[in-house]
């Protein structure tokens, strides 16, 4: 072999040795890395397993794992407590637990669970081991193996018996309340009828007395008889007002779109307005959702009051409107006698008329307040005695949205 050839071979050998060393070094590093990452995976696995075990044992809700055919595989402590079965000693199927009347719903829900892989907010009645019926809420999902084949179903089961019972109780209470409200309403009508009948009779009798004795009675007696009549009228008005007040109930059945602009204009045609009083609508009033009769009552009472308490040579009443976020704000301003500050709260209370006049029973404003309250709004006033009063009230734009 030539020296040149030997040199080539030696160089090749040297390269091979160097390459081998390099390879060994790389391998060593890699195996170190591998060991390190496998340690990390092991730690992570142990940590996750212990977390899962902790969740399984500690969740307050019942946790159930079952086979696709419904055979129960696992109960946590809460589940054992809820259902009453000891899964280690007896085997049960999910269908043994479900209330017979809820079977159909159970089947359709399980089909959905299989189709989607999960099912949320399933509610059903179950039988415990001791025959007790309970309401439960279930969030379930399918457990898949690594080939994505469904192997089991798992679910978090919550006992909602208490909540369900409360719901049922609430429904019953609401029904009862509606009924007693209605009864009260009817009762108010009967009472008002029974109270008004004697008044009518007295009025007739007094009239006959007057008719039959026109020559015999002196001036003073005729005067007294007319006072009896006036008193009767006041009494009748009082009864009507009490009936009206008791009739203002939360009733959403007549909620429709109401153009308050038209409503107020119609009212101004009905209400008696003396010649010296001018009524101005300063803004186009909005169309709102509400009950026509109730809104009429509100405007009629406030406008009538403004007219009633006008004492100036030229009376001016201004009706205005503003859009404020979730509310409509109306205002009715007059230049009448005004209300002293200390009465501002009191006037909204029933039978608290500040002015003890013949045509105010003191119920009007309390009806207005009751209605405004129903609409989730507020009512208040600003006033200066002898200068005038402005009543403000707001109505919520979504009257149904109130709680």
């Amino acid at each position, binding site marked *: 072999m030539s020296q040149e*050839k030997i040199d*080539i*071979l030696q*160089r*090749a050998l*040297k*390269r*091979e*040795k*160097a*390459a*081998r060393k*390099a*390879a060994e070094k*790389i*391998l060593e590093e890699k195996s170190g890395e591998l060991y390190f990452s496998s340690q990390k995976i092991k730690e992570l696995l142990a940590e996750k397993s212990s977390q899962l075990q902790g969740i399984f044992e500690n969740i307050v809700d019942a946790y159930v794992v079952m086979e696709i055919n419904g055979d129960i595989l696992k109960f946590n402590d809460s589940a054992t407590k809820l259902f009453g079965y000891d899964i280690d000693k007896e085997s049960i199927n999910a269908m043994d637990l479900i209330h017979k009347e809820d079977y159909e719903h159970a089947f359709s829900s399980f089909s959905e669970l299989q189709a989607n892989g999960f099912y949320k907010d399933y509610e059903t009645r179950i039988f415990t081991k001791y025959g007790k019926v309970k309401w439960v809420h279930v969030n379930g999902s399918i457990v898949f193996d690594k080939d994505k084949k469904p192997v089991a179903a798992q679910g978090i089961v919550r006992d909602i018996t208490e909540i369900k019972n409360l719901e049922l109780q609430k429904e019953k209470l609401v029904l009862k309340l509606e009924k007693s409200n209605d009864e009260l309403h009817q009762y108010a009508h009967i009472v008002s009828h029974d109270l008004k009948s004697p008044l009518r009779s007295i009025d007739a009798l007094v009239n006959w007395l007057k008719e039959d004795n026109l020559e015999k009675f002196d001036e003073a007696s005729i005067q007294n008889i007319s006072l009896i009549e006036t008193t009767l009228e006041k009494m009748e008005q009082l009864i009507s007002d009490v009936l009206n007040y008791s009739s203002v109930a939360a009733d959403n059945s007549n909620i429709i779109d109401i153009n308050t602009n038209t409503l107020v204009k119609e009212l101004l045609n009905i209400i008696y307005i003396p010649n010296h009083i001018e009524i101005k609508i300063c803004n186009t009033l909005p169309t709102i959702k509400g009950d026509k009769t109730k809104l009429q009552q509100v405007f009629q009472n406030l406008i009538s009051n403004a007219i009633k308490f006008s004492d100036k040579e030229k009376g001016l009443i201004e009706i205005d409107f503003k859009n404020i976020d979730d509310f409509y704000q109306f205002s009715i301003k007059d230049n009448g006698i005004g209300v002293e500050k200390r009465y501002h709260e009191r006037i909204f209370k029933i039978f608290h008329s500040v002015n003890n006049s013949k045509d105010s029973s003191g119920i009007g404003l309390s009806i207005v307040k009751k209605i405004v309250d129903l609409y989730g709004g507020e009512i208040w006033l600003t006033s200066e005695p002898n200068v005038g009063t402005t009543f403000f009230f707001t109505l919520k734009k979504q009257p149904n949205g109130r709680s």
Partner: protein
Amino acid sequence: MKGIVFREFLDLVEEKFGLEMVDEIITKSDLESGGAYTSIGTYSFSEMLQLLQHLSAKTNISIDNLLLIYGEHLFAVLGNSYPGLLETYADPIEMLASIEDHIHIEVRKIYPDAELPTFIVEERTENSLVMIYKSSRAMHHFGLGLMNKTFEYFNSSATIVLEKIKEDGTEVKFIINKN
């Protein structure tokens, strides 16, 4: 560049031109690795470039042609090492069209830091394929060699035309028509 590419390249040079040629091109090149390559190592691409240049000068074969032959050689090596990969395909067009989406992903599983070219499919019919090759290495003929062998492997053949989009060969259009 992965060591296996150097190992296989030098093995091919030794097989075709003898150990002397291997010794000569290594000795003439200025190599950081000193020419000691292990298939699991990673080396600078400039080493491959020097080896190719010296081999080309010595043999009077163009670098492109050297790469073509080398590509053809490497296909067999890879085919032997990873037979499973080839078996997943029934058709060469299908296999070539999936370089980017499948083959390179598999390659990265074995060599996470491999620097791979991109092959963007522009047009594909049952019997034809137009792809754009992009790589700073300009080793399009290496790709051509692999492709030739691909058709051969499926007992088929094709006419493959290369059109340079960039003069330096870093972007090349491959127009492949099955015969």
